[in-house]
């Protein structure tokens, strides 16, 4: 498998009235052809901004990609997306890299038929005429499992349920056979049963079409069955990166350990209380000098307060940004009280 995407030192800032928001702080990662990468983290940790920066979909102003390179493509085709002209990046958007978004209720245009919204990209990128695009749109809707697709082409988004709309979004994303599909929390706004359906659908389509996927979520449960590799983000930094089995079996960053510990398990005993990570992520306008997770970390030591650890390999394919060699068995150095973090 050859390299499809390489993100180097990506840094995105928002220049607001309250100050500069450090949304993404120099992240590096890569993705191979046909690979599925999950980016995990809680709300506001820079996951969405990180991927939207790739396609330059950040609202500018106030947002700006201030540093970094985004190499996309294979062989001679490799280009830095951040250096492309507006016309060139438009050729990539929806064509070679497609995106689906979190809320299918608001991500489709309410006053345009779904047939039109799907055909639009087909006519733009593949040069199809109206007739051909409509035919292809029907095929795509059938592909994502929308019953009576041909009849529903002229329906408007409000005539579909949430799950169906997300299927339409996926059909739209897949319309031009992209090499990379970026799914920005595609299941977050849906019912649990529908979540599983959508995840299964994407998995099936990936196996059929063979595109690479970046799947953004804060739900580690969804990731387990879907991803090859996982990146954990916190406060705009990547704190851990590993193959999915390795990450679940042997998490090495205190934040990842906390996240996994807060997952409810069916096989847990009654006495086993669901743990949580106390406190809130740091203010991205005023980032602490040391490790961004310091205030909430049960394993912290002195150096963590002043020095932000770099992402270093701890095992083949496993990188962690932590000053200590923490595992699940490591005893706490401090017990974080809820009150302490709030104050």
């Amino acid at each position: 498998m050859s390299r499809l995407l390489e993100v180097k030192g990506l840094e995105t800032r928002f220049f607001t009235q309250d100050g500069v928001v450090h949304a993404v702080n120099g992240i590096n990662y890569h993705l191979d052809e046909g690979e599925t990468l999950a980016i995990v983290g809680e709300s506001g940790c820079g996951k969405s901004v990180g991927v939207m920066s790739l396609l330059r979909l950040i609202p500018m102003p106030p947002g700006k990609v201030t540093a970094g390179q985004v190499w996309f493509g294979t062989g001679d085709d490799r280009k830095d997306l951040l250096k492309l002209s507006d016309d060139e990046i438009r050729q990539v958007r929806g064509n070679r890299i497609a995106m689906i978004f979190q809320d299918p209720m608001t991500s489709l245009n309410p006053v345009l038929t779904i047939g039109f919204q799907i055909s639009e990209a087909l006519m733009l990128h593949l040069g199809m005429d109206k007739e051909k695009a409509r035919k292809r749109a029907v095929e795509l809707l059938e592909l994502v499992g929308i019953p009576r697709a041909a009849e529903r082409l002229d329906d408007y988004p409000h005539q579909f349920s949430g799950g169906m709309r997300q299927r339409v979004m996926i059909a739209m994303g897949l319309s031009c056979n992209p090499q990379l599909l970026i799914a920005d929390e595609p299941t977050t706004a849906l019912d649990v049963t529908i979540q599983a359906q959508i995840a299964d659908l994407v998995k099936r389509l990936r196996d059929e079409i063979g595109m690479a996927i970046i799947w953004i979520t804060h739900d580690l449960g969804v990731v387990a069955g879907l991803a090859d590799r996982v990146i954990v983000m916190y406060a705009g930094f990547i704190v851990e990166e590993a193959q999915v089995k390795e990450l679940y079996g042997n998490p090495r960053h205190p934040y990842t350990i906390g996240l996994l510990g807060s997952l409810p398990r069916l096989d847990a005993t009654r006495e086993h209380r669901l743990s949580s990570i106390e406190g809130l992520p740091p203010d991205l306008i005023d980032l602490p000098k040391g490790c961004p997770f310091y205030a909430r970390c049960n394993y912290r030591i002195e150096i963590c307060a002043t020095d932000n650890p770099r992402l270093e390999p701890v095992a083949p394919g496993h990188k962690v940004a932590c000053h200590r060699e923490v595992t699940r068995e490591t005893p706490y150095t401090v017990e974080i009280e809820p009150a302490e973090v709030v104050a």
Partner: protein
Amino acid sequence: MTTFIVRRLLWMIPTLFAVALVTFIIMRSAPGGPWDTSAERRQVDASTQKSLNAYYGLDKPLWRQFVAYTIGDVNKKGTFVCGAICGNLGPSYRTRGRTVQDILFSPPADRPLWYSRFGYSIRLGLIALAFALIVGIPVGIIAALKHNSFADYVSLVIATIGISVPSFVMAIFMIVIFARWLGLVPVVPRTWDTITPWILPALVLGFGTMAFTARLTRTSMLEVIRQDYVRTARAKGLKERAVILRHMLKNALIPVVTILGPSLAGLVTGSFIIETMFGFPGMGRAYVQSIGQRDYSMIMGTTLIYAFLVALANLSVDLIYSFVDPRIRLE
């Protein structure tokens, strides 16, 4: 859809009846009457007044006059004469020999319908509305896209002037500047058959609506710009022009469409001050004159036509609405 239209049309009857009643009460409680004498006009002596009152039925009790005007009454020969409900707006008291509908709707000899007083007013209203939309919507779009820029502030100043300065004040300034100082248009035109004399009244009349449309377009565009589906459209690789025209504008114009009806009605009916100031041969000027002359049937008739136009404009907006926004279904 058809049921909706029929029901709305039927609802107009009680509405117009209420309008007629209120107008009748206010009109008859105002002092004076149609045969009032004034120094510069021919005197009407008491006996003539009495016979005129009898002829026009003004000697009957007020309630009967109202019923006679709106629904109908039996005349002296014993036949039933249908009133406003049948489209009979009565004889004008001041323009002898002509009925109200004749004055408003009949064009001068050998001229098409749009040369009637009604036609003139409709034309002026439509031109003013066209001006308001053609200028207002693009100004609003630009102001929203260039949010907080110089262009945005310029549009804000224009809009504030347009909304806060009354049209008659604007009219005076316009007449002084363009007709007196610059001499570009005549103050009182001899003929309304050319385009030049229409410019000022249409501009003055449409200015407020233009300002309001610009503000409304700007506000709703700013709201639409932040919507997720605009991001989706960009993520598809669409050109910025397509994003704005196809994906933003259609959504942003929904609120604008809602004010279209009241605006058009306001422009057609609200023009009586402007029409009087510019000596415009429309319905509005005739209306203002008829009030001064206590031409009762003329006041009633014109008011009813105005009310009917407002109701019709609102109905048509509801119909347009269902085309612009597919989420709205009329029942």
